[in-house]
């Protein structure tokens, strides 16, 4: 029985045990949704899940008919609790164990066959290598034609005489004259006053980006993102998470907030002039008590 037939049989089997009013609809719906699954394991998981869904649906629909009947309803509900509505507990357990075995065996077969296939190398093939050229003696290098070169150095006669200039005589001794003040040499470089950037006016509210599920789960924390902002407070690149809060949902919310704040950042300044810069931005998600 092929994998496709197994999944179709499982869904047909599951729908057949659903309440009568839903059986045809569920089978058609599940077969249609099964077509969206591509991998064999996924299809098998889907079909097994449908079997479980049938049990739950049958269990939830059973009390409404039982309560409408007479005093025997209590007995019926009690047996429903034990037997999941339409098959015995023993049968359902056996079916569940069997399904798990099928899934495991199928998973092992597909995973191991893929591993072996990739591990086995391609078959060896003989191939003629090009014959190497016999050793050949390289031709002798041409001998350089070295001629005697005579370099004549002209004889330069120098006749230097020094006559002292009476107007520019050099004297030694203490100097009484005050030397003009020399300009002060800069001993320290010019210090640039830098101001870090941050959220500016009109920056979005953190609460608007608090994920709903995180609120439900009570998740709190601080997510630090890295933002690069130009002189006008606009993002120049997509923000990235520097340090997570421990919750992927909160980190994603922080990134959305950082993106939404583009144009509302306060740019960093150097000597009072706004400049482009990158800096970390801590975003705290905290619930009210």
């Amino acid at each position, binding site marked *: 029985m092929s994998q496709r037939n197994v999944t179709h049989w499982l869904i047909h089997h599951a729908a057949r045990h659903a309440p009568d009013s839903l059986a045809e609809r569920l089978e058609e*719906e599940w077969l*249609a949704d099964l077509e969206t699954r591509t991998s064999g394991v996924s299809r098998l*998981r889907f079909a097994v*899940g*449908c079997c479980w*869904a049938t049990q739950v649906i049958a269990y*939830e629909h059973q009390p*409404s008919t039982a309560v409408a009947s007479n005093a025997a309803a209590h007995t019926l509900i009690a047996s429903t609790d034990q037997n999941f509505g339409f098959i015995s507990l023993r049968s359902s357990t056996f079916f569940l164990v069997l399904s798990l075995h099928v899934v495991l065996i199928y998973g092992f077969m597909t995973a191991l066959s893929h591993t072996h296939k990739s591990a086995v190398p391609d078959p060896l093939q003989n191939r003629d290598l090009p014959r190497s050229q016999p050793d050949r003696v390289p031709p002798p290098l041409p001998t350089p034609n070295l001629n005697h070169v005579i370099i004549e150095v002209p004889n330069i006669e120098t006749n230097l005489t020094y006559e002292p200039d009476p107007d520019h005589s050099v004297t030694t001794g203490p100097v009484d004259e005050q030397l003009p003040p020399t300009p002060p040499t800069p001993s320290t470089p010019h210090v640039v006053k830098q101001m870090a950037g941050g959220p500016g006016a009109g920056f979005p509210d953190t609460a608007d980006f608090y994920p*709903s599920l995180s609120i439900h789960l009570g998740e709190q924390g601080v997510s630090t993102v890295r933002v690069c902002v130009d002189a006008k407070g606009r993002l120049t690149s997509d923000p990235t998470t520097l340090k997570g809060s421990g919750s992927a949902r909160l980190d994603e919310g922080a990134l959305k907030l950082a993106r939404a704040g583009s144009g509302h950042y306060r740019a960093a300044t150097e000597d009072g002039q706004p400049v482009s810069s990158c800096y970390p931005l801590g975003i705290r998600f905290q*619930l009210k008590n």
Partner: protein
Amino acid sequence: MGKKDANVRMSLQTLRVLESFLENPTEQLSGADVHQRCHIASGTLYPILLRLESAGWFVSQWESIDPSSAGRPRRRLYRLTSTGLRRASEVFASFNRGVLA
């Protein structure tokens, strides 16, 4: 469907299903679409969909395509009702009230 009880037990999986519908309340989603968005197994997903439909939060109908021309079977599409939209919004709003500004 069976019982008409508007009070639905809010499990985490139910909230995730509702959240996927609230992203675009007018959109019709099949079970496969919901699975792709919130990755809930079929054994849990379909009972939730039927439970919400039974409670009047969802309505469902068959996809209006010709299976032979589309090359695939028609799907069952679920959509939030006005009641479902209001109740789901109330559920999520009750969480948002606890958030610091």
